């Protein structure tokens, strides 16, 4: 497993596979490193606030990313502007790195839309609920990049790659295997990024796989690497490398970010029914934010003024999320008929008319 930062916040230098990746980290400025920390803290705060909003009845459900912040920020910050991300429904940290307002994510969980952002605007595609389906979309998109001649040209602004996010549970789905097959035989520029958080709702990884997941790539004919998913530096470096390989025409790459889902699968389940708290306590000691903060402070790359400023920013962001959620309007009801087809559809047009007239009849009866 690639690790560049121990849980105690010590840099792992050389002597292992890690040495291959240190250059990526060495190239980062202090400002960029502080930016990683800011991302980690802010997205955790969004998550905390969203969980609270769900408990207060303002969101129907929430899928927490608690514990997976480094896997998402590390990989999200490794993306080039022209790369495309295909998320599942928990990639709030990646969305953040792509510049998607967290309120756009909350809309789906509040029930005002089914994914209300334009994927083309931020190169961040819609959340996918059906487990693993997006890995095929990502692969097809990567095939499109190939056909556009935007891979392996050597032009860093032109060459693009796709990253597909999924969990350990998704690896049991046929779609993920088919995506691996297509990507491999097409040599498509796609990085498969598995956040192995060790739980598929209540089922542990042993119910999904018999071998370490990163080893699956070998059977499909492309490289796979396991990285400490709670180490933002290692995730960044490994993903950056994988994306570079894909962009340069080397084909797909599997990154398994080994992490832990600290919360429930969603706010609807109760992890105390299926896992022991001792495990959670062990993983608390591997917290991605604490270790990175310790390293930044020890190295003198950030001081208490910075850390305090980030906390203040988090407070502000939490307020934005809370206010924005409470003020989020329900969609205009007839609009549900509007976006089903591009071309006019006589049945839908008639139903829309009936719907509007039916509701108008109630308003009329009140007047």
């Amino acid at each position, binding site marked *: 497993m690639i690790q560049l930062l121990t849980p105690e916040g010590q840099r792992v230098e050389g002597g292992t596979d890690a040495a291959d990746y240190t250059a990526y980290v060495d190239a980062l400025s202090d400002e960029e490193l502080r930016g990683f920390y800011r991302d980690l803290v802010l997205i955790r705060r969004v998550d905390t606030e969203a969980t609270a909003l769900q408990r207060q009845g303002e969101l129907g459900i929430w899928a927490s990313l608690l514990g997976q912040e480094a896997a998402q920020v590390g990989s999200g910050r490794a993306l080039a502007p022209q790369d495309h991300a295909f998320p599942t429904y928990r990639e709030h940290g990646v969305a953040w790195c792509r510049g998607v307002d967290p309120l756009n994510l909350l809309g789906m969980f509040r029930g005002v839309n089914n994914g209300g952002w334009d994927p083309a605007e931020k190169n961040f595609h819609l959340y996918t609920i059906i487990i693993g389906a997006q890995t095929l*979309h990502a692969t*097809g998109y990567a095939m499109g990049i190939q056909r556009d001649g935007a891979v392996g040209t050597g032009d860093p602004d032109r060459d693009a790659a796709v990253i597909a996010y999924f969990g350990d549970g998704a690896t049991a789905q046929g779609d993920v295997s*088919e995506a691996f097959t297509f990507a491999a035989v097409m040599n498509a520029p796609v990085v498969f990024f598995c956040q192995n958080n060790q739980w598929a709702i209540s089922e542990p990884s042993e119910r999904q796989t018999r071998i370490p997941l990163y080893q699956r790539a070998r059977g499909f004919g492309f490289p796979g690497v396991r990285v400490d998913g709670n180490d933002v530096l290692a995730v960044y470096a490994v993903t950056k490398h994988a994306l570079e390989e894909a962009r340069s025409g080397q084909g797909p790459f599997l990154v398994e970010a080994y992490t832990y889902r600290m919360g429930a699968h969603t706010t609807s389940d109760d992890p105390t029914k299926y896992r022991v708290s001792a495990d959670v306590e062990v993983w608390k000691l591997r917290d991605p934010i604490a270790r990175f903060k310790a390293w930044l402070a020890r190295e003198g790359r950030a001081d208490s003024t910075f850390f305090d400023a980030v906390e203040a920013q988090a407070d502000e962001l939490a307020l934005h999320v809370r206010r924005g959620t409470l003020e989020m309007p329900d969609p205009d009801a007839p609009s549900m008929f509007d976006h*089903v087809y591009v071309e006019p559809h006589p049945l839908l047009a008639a139903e829309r008319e009936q719907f509007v007239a039916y509701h108008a009849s109630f308003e009329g009866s009140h007047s």
Partner: protein
Amino acid sequence: MTQLTIAKALTNGLRAAMEKDPKVVLMGEDIGKLGGVFRVTEGLQKDFGEERVIDTPLAEAGIVGTAVGLALRGYRPVVEIQFDGFVYPAFDHIVSQVAKMRARSLGTVAMPIVIRIPVGGGIGAVEHHSESNEAYFTHTAGLKVVCVSNPEDAYWGIQQAIATDDPVVFYEPKRRYWDKGEVGIDAPTRGLWSAAVAREGTDCTVVAYGPMVKTCLQAAQAAAEEGRSLEVVDLRSLSPLDLDTLCASVEKTGRMVVVHEASTSGGLGAEIAAAVTQRSFHHLEAPVLRVGGYNLPYPPSRLEEDFLPDLDRVLDGVDRALAF
């Protein structure tokens, strides 16, 4: 005018669409060098290259799932499913992803994908090669579903299906692939999305699509010899339904029989019967009747002639409608 089989009309239609728009790509199993199991894509890989005529791995979910990604990138994938019974592994991608992407993106994303499916029985095939599964897809909002019955509609229809920004399930009647007919070289005068009156008549309307249109036209010819005038409507678009044409016909004849190969329960005939009855009730002299496959798994091919509606069963349906 030129004489073409339905299969060749489709090949020419695909070729025309590919020449017109470089974003059109074909995907499927065996569609390259072999030209597809029905040879519909014959010669296209040679002329357009492997990047545009893609021989895929043998994985239907993969074919449609990656087509979604290509469409998101601005391509117009035309996917070939080898046989009707092989579409089920791709079902999730068609009904949950392709059909819903536009609605869930609030209109920012289009899915200009055509899913070509050779459909229906009558060729003596083994199981899973003869099914009529259109009702699964007509039941799904977000999809358009069409079924062509003749070379002219095949040639123009495939081009219209590719040109629309909405996803289309495009059924091709496999036992009619080798039927020849005239194909006009001018632009289509009728849209793929509207029904066509294939034969005018006054006593009873017979509605069919795809492979059953020919059977119904034969039935109408036989009925004419006995002094009965049947109007045959070729539905072409199964979703959305062209109720205007259907109701205009039934309001003229007062009777309607819907014919399809698919099992009748929960089938498209039920939808047509309900929709037409609702709109044209006062013009009906008889209930809208259905003639379809029995409610069975598709039987072994030695029994398919008993399973599939034929000319006599269509005429029997007409007799029942006229007896009211």
